[in-house]
């Protein structure tokens, strides 16, 4: 009994060190905020269309039975520039449905940006005052959500998506269709 008591500090250390080792080896990023959106039904979607003559974006776009990517971006945002080619690739190679929403951006600036870089979006809307983004729990741009065929948010990326993220996105995109 007495001996065990003296072993206690050592055992606590082993447990602590186990957690530290786990943390280091799992490659987790403590700076990522995580998301409360994942696993819930997609938030409200209503935004005027960026393209003249097209109807406004509605929730129906998220409940087509096919997975959808929703990307918040802006023409003034450099990381959005970095992830843009990946969306183009997703659209062309995978036939992914991508909805783009320009956040706190002037529509004409967004249009010029898309005209210059190419437009990978099936539908594009704008959220000039950022009110829609509040419902989506946006912390900035770019952020990307993957919504499955049933309208449930499956993935939420804060910051630009990268090649590495595609390995998570692709199975869900393909699996759902």
């Amino acid at each position, binding site marked *: 009994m*007495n*001996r065990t008591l*003296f*072993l206690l*500090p*050592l055992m606590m*250390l*082993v447990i*602590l*060190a186990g*957690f*530290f*080792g*786990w*943390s*280091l080896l*799992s*490659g*987790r990023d*403590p*700076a*990522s*905020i*995580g998301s409360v959106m994942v696993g819930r039904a997609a938030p409200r979607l209503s935004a005027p269309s960026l393209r003249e003559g097209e109807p406004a974006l509605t929730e129906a776009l998220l409940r087509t039975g096919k997975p959808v990517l929703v990307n918040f971006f802006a023409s003034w945002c450099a990381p959005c520039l970095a992830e843009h080619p990946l969306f183009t690739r997703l659209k062309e190679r995978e036939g992914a449905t991508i909805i783009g929403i320009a956040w706190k951006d002037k529509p004409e600036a967004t249009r010029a940006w898309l005209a210059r870089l190419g437009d990978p979006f099936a539908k594009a809307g704008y959220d000039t005052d950022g009110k829609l983004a509040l419902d989506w729990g946006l912390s900035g741009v770019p952020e990307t959500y993957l919504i499955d065929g049933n309208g449930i948010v499956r993935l939420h990326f804060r910051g630009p998506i990268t090649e590495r993220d595609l390995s998570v996105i692709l199975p869900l995109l393909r699996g759902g269709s």
Partner: protein
Amino acid sequence: MIPELGHFALILALAVALVQGTLPFVGAAKGDIRLMALGRSAALTQVLLIALAFLALMQAYVASDFSVANVVANSHSAKPLLYKISGVWGNHEGSMLLWSLILAVFGAAVAVFGNNLPDSLRARVLGVQALIGVGFLAFILFTSNPFERVSPAPVDGNGLNPLLQDPGLAFHPPLLYLGYVGFSVTYAFAIAALLEGRVDAAWARWVRPWTLAAWCFLTCGIALGSWWAYYILGWGGFWFWDPVENASLMPWLAGTALLHSAIVVEKRDALKSWTVLLAVLAFSLSLLGTFLVRSGVLTSVHAFAQDPARGIFILGFLLLVTGGGLALYAWQAPKLSGGGLFQPISREGALILNNLLLCTLAATVLLGTLYPLFLDLLTGNKVSVGPPFFNATFVPICAPLFAALCVGPFLNWKRAELGPALVRLRAAFAVSVIAAIVAAVAVDGRATLAAVAFGFGVWLILGSLVEFAGRVRRGRLRTLPRATVGMTISHAALGVVVLGAVATASWNVELIRTMKPGDSAEFAGFGVKLESIVPGQGPNYIAERATLVLTRNGQPYTTLTPERRLFTVQRRQISETSIHTNLLRDLYATLGEGDADKGWTIRLYWNPLAPWIWLGAGLCALGGFVSLSDRRLRIGAPRGSKGRSRTAVQAAE
């Protein structure tokens, strides 16, 4: 050429440390006096070699030698000289080198001042110290070599993190390391004692000055860090419960507990295994802090090189040092016989209560700091633990600690009466209660808890002074040991810190306003006018400087000139606060974002008693130094006591 010399000196130092970490142990085990004496000369050689390496790196920084990768990454030719020098330890590699240097300095100090130690104990202490040094030197040489060259050498460097370009932070790391590394000596003493299987009053007498020295430096280091956060981050606060701050607070709490429990070992030969455990823990928590700051397992506002690969190395080292120490403890500590018996109400009892509460505080900080990590790993949930948690846990545990702090020194050893002590403290108690009521009614009726905490601050000051006055009245001022004077200073100073912290945190007045030049506002009884915002130019930054004129009753009072600096090399902005203090309150101004169209965000704080936080912390450390100057604790104790302590050791065998 000089960087290579430094590198070479570092390799030699590793070799010397290996020798120092092995042969003296053999000598101590065999009773070979020559092998034991080797530890002493090795420790002195080691400090020379590491100092040489450190100077070589400093030379590279001062001369802006951009063929050295470390200098390129952290220095710039346009940087002021002070920050070229402080840049040496303002980065991961250099700070590790500083750490090793301080470790070696402490080792050398044991070698030089430890003449009165038994030979085998000294040999073992130096051996343990050297083994820790081996770990750090290997870490530097194999994973973070500060002398690495780049070819071709760039024209100029990237510059030091602008937040670190500040006189407060130039000296914060060295002081902090003096504290952290100082605990390595107590750790070495604890391990040596466990190896010898003997802890006695003489051992405690040797350990106490080292603990005290480390504790004083750590106190200064933490205070300086908090002061820096106060005036450079521009948020008006002084403590943010950030993981990096917590990392330095935990060893401080454990060290404070050790400081007190070592007294019991020294005076009463009790609490031995507990004290040894604390000595191991104080250094382990220092290492844990290093690990948390550098591995990137937690996020923090403080910028430091974070690298999981290094994290693995430090974790391994932490496991070796702490695990080795605790395993040895589990094996040997049950054999340490308990000494003097005592009643629960006695000086010993009070010191145990102090230890229990301080360790609970340390555990609370540890839990709060690591909880986000545990939760994230176990459930994937992200939380952040901040001031609400610590206000709800840390602060209430302080209450019994502060309450008992003034009573403890009145109690006798072995057995004491609580009644007489309380009677002598009744005046202090009454004044404290009145102070709390006045604070609650007159200052701010909403913050009742703050008023209670304020009362505790007054209680700490008065209670300590009453105890001191009692000693003086008994006509013992001249013969009063300095350790007692030091204790009174430190205890009362804690009260000063509490008053400052409570007043600043609870009763500050804040004004955030967007202003254009010419705009005026009312603030805490002052009229504030934004006179102008003009561009400025520093050695390595461009600035916007606001001139705020404060008037009181229409009369000019003072001018505050907060700045926002853009460091051109790193493209980083930092705010330079402007503070006007009269030692009773700070007027604190920062300049935020803005332009001529919309105006600039001006933040003003009126922080009552804010200077007392750092004044108190400084006094606290001063108390420690006064106590350290006590001849009974002096490291190179006079010859007379040498003979006595030797006898004591033999008697204990």
